[in-house]
């Protein structure tokens, strides 16, 4: 298996933002993702459903006290796909001779 693989599904700008947030999380709250990425409830639901159907994201619905709470997390397959995608991006940059400095 290649150490780098460009993933079209992840690379869509909104999904890249969502998956990147989830990549640094064990799980993330729906509202946190929505507010951070700047999406409406329905737009985020749509993107998460797409990622869930591909097996990249797992969505959990539960309650905190009496309040409903939805959280999302990357599956193992999702995390692997994200890491391969990042590696593919790094390869593209490296081939051009440029470097990416960490923020």
């Amino acid at each position, binding site marked *: 298996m290649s150490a780098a693989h460009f993933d079209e599904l992840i690379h869509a700008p909104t999904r890249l933002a969502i998956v*990147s947030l989830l*990549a640094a999380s064990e799980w*993330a709250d729906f509202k946190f993702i929505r507010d*951070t990425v700047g999406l409406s409830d329905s737009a985020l639901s749509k993107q998460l459903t797409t990622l869930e159907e591909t097996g990249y994201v797992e969505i959990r619905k539960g309650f905190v006290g009496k309040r409903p709470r939805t959280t999302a997390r990357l599956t193992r397959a999702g995390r692997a796909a994200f890491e391969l995608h990042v590696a593919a991006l790094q390869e593209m940059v490296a*081939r051009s001779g440029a470097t*990416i400095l960490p*923020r």
Partner: protein
Amino acid sequence: MSEQMSPGEAAQALDEVQRRQQQVIDLVAIPAWYWWAVGGLIVVLGIGVDIRTPAAIGITVPVFVVGLLAVNGWVIGRAYRHAQVRNELLDGPGVLSILGFVAVIVGGTIGLAFTLRAAGVHYPATWACLAGGLVMGLGGPVLNRWLRRVMLGNRAGSGR
């Protein structure tokens, strides 16, 4: 699509990947007041140990325990409301730093208290806890910055 993507676009995407991960990492930033609050609570405990009357113990120990639960609950609750940062970002050096910091505070405070008592200093536990509290207040933010740096270095796309 990847064939048509320019290195500049790939770099932009990587920048976005890093920026989004940083937003999650910044959720666990501990405010500076937390370290001073815990340092103050240590001093309260030290006062109780030195005075050692039932009334002093009865006041200082509950203040210490309840205060510690309250400030920790606030910090943890604030972070967990949004997301839980991935454990693996902290890595071995991060975990060791936390354990080392706690060991220095606890070990140093107890060691200093016994040394001061042996030297005949009045209120040794209070003085030692004051020193421990100062190290906590001054060192906590330094630890915080270090842990943030470790986590940022371990995020995907950081070049490691």
